[in-house]
């Protein structure tokens, strides 16, 4: 009997050991044997299209990508039959794909076609290459499809249909000359393609290639097409005589030459909280492409449009590259020393005159953990104030509050893999497919392939809603009511997880009592959702073996954001869906490091690792290490600071990488507060609206120009490496902070972020085991991380994070939204992110690729309302709330309904930005602005105008869902014969 987990197979008479069940290709690879294969891909599996992997088993030819290793399997690799079949396979491939490697952008060592031709030592072109009857498709702004080079392996189709699940690509095997199609058509640029780049990433050759690579990859690739063609033909003539070998030798020299020029650096994406990691391929400052790799723990081969194509902003002409100082009503360039001297002098004067609490520090959720740590240390240890916060105040602080109240840790309960495993997912106020795209792809996969059930509560019919099993639209701001009604129904009908509640949860009785008002009738009246539908939801949730809840800003940005988050946690506890694999609470962190920024102490009342500043023992630990006495005064947060300035309490502000003047609610009120400040330092990579208020502007470096770590939404720490040098005179934020601290007399001396992390880990028990070595390459750790490096992918498996290990049900009452519609302000304005943009757009607006998809922001108007108001897509309207007004173009869409409007937050000026409409109201428990509570009226300014979204935007097109590549249709073609028989028309498919 074989040992469990190991099997023995015989290959060409030799015995090999490996894992049973592995595809033979993988099994052999594990034993150092490289069985030729092109279409097989670890993530995509066996597509069986390339016919290059044949082996013989019991006299029968089998494809090595589909054959599974099992004990006793006897495989013949080198016999004539298998060799001839493989050779026929690759001959067919080169009949479809012209080998001109030295002038090809894909000749970078990872071209599967090149590598297999070389590996099989193919001597010459047996079947002539014949161009296809299709032109190159250049219609997509980010990538190109060349039917002449396409080998019809189907990897792109599989990636689009079954990994990304956008379901745009297909191959029409029935055509005379099959090719890849976009929504059944021949133009990628006019299709439902969301530009996630999966297809380009997995294409084994140059048939699909990033436009950023064209003419850039190698020394000879820049040749104009008019020259390339004759050059290729010349070489092809010679190749008839000399075969592939000498030509290949040249292309390998070319490839080696490229390797020395192309730098490949691992980085972590900064466009959302999912935490995708990938390689950036660069030559100097030129970004050649983003190449995801399978070992990336969160995303594997996946990216979204921003991660794959949105980095050109780093080379934007208007990057800040030198410090600026305000002088006589204008900014002038200055040296770093002068800027530091001015900052040190003014900070000292203000502290001496008004005390340290007259100064406020704002860290950035886009910067690294190390930079968050330094910002709070600067505020606390160098200046002596707890006035330090970050922009999680604008988004997820209520979720954190809800989890602190009930479960103990302010972070996702498990990992993305738990979400994948769950039987049911409840989405609330989360447009996951656009705000957390790569996480959504994994859940769309579970939904498509495994029948995972999706229940979506949202105001808007976004993609997740469109695909959901149950989609319900509650009235704005009423989620707490239906959540509580569902919990009550479950408890009243004995559907709760009794054992779990008994063993692991406290305060059931108080909670049960607090639910009394939340009857189904009340819920129906208040939310507008029929009681029967809510009962159906209650029964589905209670019956689910494993349930996860995913929520985002649609829940948190309300006056009762913390309460609604708490209600979600309560519901999970009642149904026993926490502290187990495949269950838990998952607030979606919006920015790349919004989790880490709080984790590393940029909050007014907490040190790194969420220990309280008010805790004497904890404070003493920091005082010892930092050698100073620390303040216990309570600090201002990002929201209360505005009031603090208006009240004359705060005199100076140091903002690192946040566009507060536009992104804090009630922008006029914020900007008028900033006008009153005595001294403002803004550190950023672009001249933002906030910079306009600065006295000193410090040019910082974006993530690609520095090192450090981020924490993603599932509490995962990952390292980013420096891709390129900081532009001009700009500097990484950690270095600027260090130099400012030194200018203020502190003895800071951090040579690199590594030493900053060492200090943080030595002080915060939550990160005790974090070291740069443990995060090397694609390694990652999920907090809490014990000193020995053991991390925690699933929270609470050993009990909840309270002294007695028990979770707490938390009684709640309903608080109505602050802004109600009335006769005058008759429209509710919802708002949020778009797939193609990040936050206000300071970065993504500077990416040509991204901007081509969404050139401006707009307001989504329902067809009903558009009819009533006589407007259409392109009309210009003025929206007036009780706090301000904006002008935006209209996009008519049935994603919104009735009098519900939706405005993407991507605007950077006072004419269009959503926060000109929002109020100063905030969550009563966490001070997160109630961004989602806006009532407005509409004035029509122009009826005719150009649509705010270009025609090529994916939102206008309809996908073509199919189950995959459908290779069986290829085999059914009358002109398909199984290798080794020669193909009658090898150039066709």
């Amino acid at each position, binding site marked *: 009997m074989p040992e469990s987990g190991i099997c023995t197979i015989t290959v060409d008479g030799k015995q090999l050991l490996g894992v049973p069940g592995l595809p033979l290709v993988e099994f052999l690879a594990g034993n150092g044997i490289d069985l030729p294969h092109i279409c097989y891909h670890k993530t995509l599996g066996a597509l069986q299209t390339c016919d290059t992997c044949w082996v013989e088993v019991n006299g029968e030819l089998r494809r090595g990508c589909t054959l599974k290793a099992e004990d006793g399997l006897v495989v013949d690799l080198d016999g004539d039959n298998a*060799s*001839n079949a493989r*050779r*026929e396979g690759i*001959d067919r491939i080169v009949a479809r794909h012209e080998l001109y490697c030295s002038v090809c952008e894909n000749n970078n060592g990872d071209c599967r076609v090149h590598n297999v031709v070389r590996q099989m*030592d*193919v*001597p*010459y072109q*047996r079947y002539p290459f014949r161009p296809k009857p299709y032109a190159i498709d250049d219609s997509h702004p980010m990538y190109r499809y060349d039917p002449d080079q396409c080998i019809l392996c189907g990897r792109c189709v599989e990636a689009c249909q079954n990994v990304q699940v956008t379901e745009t690509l297909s191959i029409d095997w029935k055509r005379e000359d099959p090719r890849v199609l976009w929504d059944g058509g021949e133009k990628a640029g006019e299709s439902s393609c969301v530009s996630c780049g999966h297809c380009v990433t997995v294409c084994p050759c140059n048939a699909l290639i990033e436009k950023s690579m064209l003419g850039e990859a190698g020394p000879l690739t820049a*040749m*104009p097409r*008019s*020259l390339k063609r*004759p*050059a290729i*033909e*010349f070489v092809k*003539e*010679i190749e*008839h*005589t*000399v*075969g592939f*070998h*000498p030509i290949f030798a040249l292309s390998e020299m070319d490839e080696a030459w490229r390797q020395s020029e192309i730098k490949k650096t691992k980085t972590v994406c900064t466009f959302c909280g999912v935490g995708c990691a990938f390689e950036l391929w660069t030559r100097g400052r030129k970004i050649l492409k983003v190449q995801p790799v399978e070992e990336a723990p969160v995303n594997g081969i996946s990216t979204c449009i921003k991660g794959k194509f949105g980095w050109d902003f780093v080379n934007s*002409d*208007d*990057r*800040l*590259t030198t410090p*600026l100082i*305000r002088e006589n*009503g*204008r*900014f002038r360039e200055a040296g770093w020393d002068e800027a530091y001297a001015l900052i040190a002098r003014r900070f000292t004067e203000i502290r001496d005159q008004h005390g340290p609490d007259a100064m406020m520090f704002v860290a950035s959720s886009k910067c690294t953990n190390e930079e968050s740590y330094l910002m709070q240390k600067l505020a606390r240890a160098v200046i002596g104030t707890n006035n330090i916060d970050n922009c999680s105040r604008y988004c997820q602080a209520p979720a954190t509050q809800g989890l602190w109240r009930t479960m103990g840790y302010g972070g996702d309960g498990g990992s993305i893999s738990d979400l994948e495993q769950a039987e049911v997912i409840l989405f609330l106020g989360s447009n996951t497919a656009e705000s957390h795209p790569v996480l959504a792809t994994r859940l769309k996969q579970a939904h498509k392939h495994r029948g995972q059930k999706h229940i979506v509560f949202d105001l808007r019919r976004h993609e997740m809603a469109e695909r959901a099993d149950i989609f319900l639209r509650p009235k704005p701001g009423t989620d707490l009511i239906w959540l509580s009604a569902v919990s009550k129904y479950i408890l009243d009908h004995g559907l709760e997880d009794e054992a779990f509640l008994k063993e692991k949860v406290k305060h059931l009785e108080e909670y049960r009592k607090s639910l009394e008002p939340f009857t189904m009738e009340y819920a129906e009246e208040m939310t507008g959702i029929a009681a029967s539908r809510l009962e159906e939801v209650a029964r589905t949730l209670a019956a689910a073996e494993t349930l996860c809840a995913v929520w985002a800003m649609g829940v948190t940005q309300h006056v009762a954001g913390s309460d609604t988050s708490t209600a979600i946690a309560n519901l999970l506890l009642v149904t026993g869906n926490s502290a187990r694999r495949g269950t838990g609470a998952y607030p979606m962190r919006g920015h790349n490091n919004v989790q880490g920024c709080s984790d590393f102490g940029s909050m007014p009342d907490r040190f790194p690792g969420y220990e309280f500043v008010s805790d004497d023992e904890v404070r003493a630990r920091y005082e010892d290490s930092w050698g100073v006495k620390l303040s216990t005064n309570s600090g201002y947060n990002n929201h209360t600071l505005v009031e603090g300035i208006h009240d004359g309490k705060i005199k100076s502000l140091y903002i690192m990488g946040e566009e507060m*003047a536009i992104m804090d609610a009630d922008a006029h009120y914020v*900007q008028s507060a*900033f*006008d*009153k*400040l*005595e*001294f*403002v330092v803004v550190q950023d990579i*672009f*001249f933002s*609206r906030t*910079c*306009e*208020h*600065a*006295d000193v502007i410090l040019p910082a470096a974006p993530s690609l120009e520095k090192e450090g770590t981020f924490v993603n939404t599932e509490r995962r720490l990952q390292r980013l490496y420096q891709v390129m040098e900081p*532009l*001009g005179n700009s500097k990484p934020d950690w270095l600027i902070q260090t130099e400012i601290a030194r200018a203020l007399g502190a003895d800071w001396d951090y040579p690199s972020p590594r030493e900053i992390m060492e200090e943080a880990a030595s002080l915060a028990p939550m990160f005790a085991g974090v070291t740069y070595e443990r995060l090397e390459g694609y390694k990652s750790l999920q907090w809490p991380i014990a000193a020995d490096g053991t991390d925690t992918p699933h929270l609470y498996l050993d009990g909840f994070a309270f002294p007695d290990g028990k979770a707490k049900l938390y009684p709640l009452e309903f608080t109505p939204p602050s802004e109600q519609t009335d006769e005058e302000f008759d429209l509710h304005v919802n708002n949020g992110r778009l797939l193609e943009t990040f936050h206000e757009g300071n970065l993504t607006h500077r990416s040509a690729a991204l901007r081509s998809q969404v050139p401006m922001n707009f307001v989504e108007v329902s067809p009903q309302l558009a009819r009533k108001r006589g407007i259409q897509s392109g009309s210009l309207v003025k929206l007036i709330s009780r706090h301000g007004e904006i002008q935006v173009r209209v996009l008519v869409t049935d994603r919104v309904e009735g009098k519900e409007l939706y405005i993407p937050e991507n605007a950077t000026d006072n004419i269009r930005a959503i926060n000109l409409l929002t109020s100063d109201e905030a969550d009563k428990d966490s001070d997160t602005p109630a961004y989602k509570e806006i009532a407005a009226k509409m004035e029509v300014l122009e009826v005719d105008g150009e649509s705010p979204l270009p025609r090529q935007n994916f939102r206008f097109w309809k996908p073509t869902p199919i189950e995959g590549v459908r290779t069986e249709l290829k085999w059914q073609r009358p002109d398909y014969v199984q290798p*080794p028989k*020669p193909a009658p028309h090898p150039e066709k498919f």
Partner: protein
Amino acid sequence: MAEAIHYEVPPPREGNTARQELDCLVENLHDQGILRFLNDFLSTSPEVSQILMKGLNTEESRNAVQNLLLIAIALGRIPPERFAVLTRAFTEGLNKMEEAAGDGKAQDAPGLMGFYRLLHDRDLWQGLRPIIAGVKGFSGPLREPPEKPVIKRHDESGNGKKPA
């Protein structure tokens, strides 16, 4: 007071030292006339390269390149140690020829009987065998119809699959 003021960021400039070095390089290139040549070349490069490519794409030059490559391949297929033997033999042979040509002694023709005797000279036979084998090897391919060498080479060596 921190009243809002706007600022247009000028396009980034090179660092000072880089700039100076670049200026210096440009000056030198100009002095040597290289810059003008490069400029001319770059501005006409597609045309020039196309002319070059046209020139190369003639029957004769293709043949020349192919022949050169064939010689290169043939050389590539001879293991260096054997090639060393060959060159030594070649040199030795040349030396002998030179000696023979230069010893000034007139040689009579061997005559029929002499030729018959020669055929029985073991040493001479030993010396001639490789040459004869070589001539045989050489004349074999010469008799065959012209064909793409690459197909022949690989299919005979069992390296490639037999064409159907």
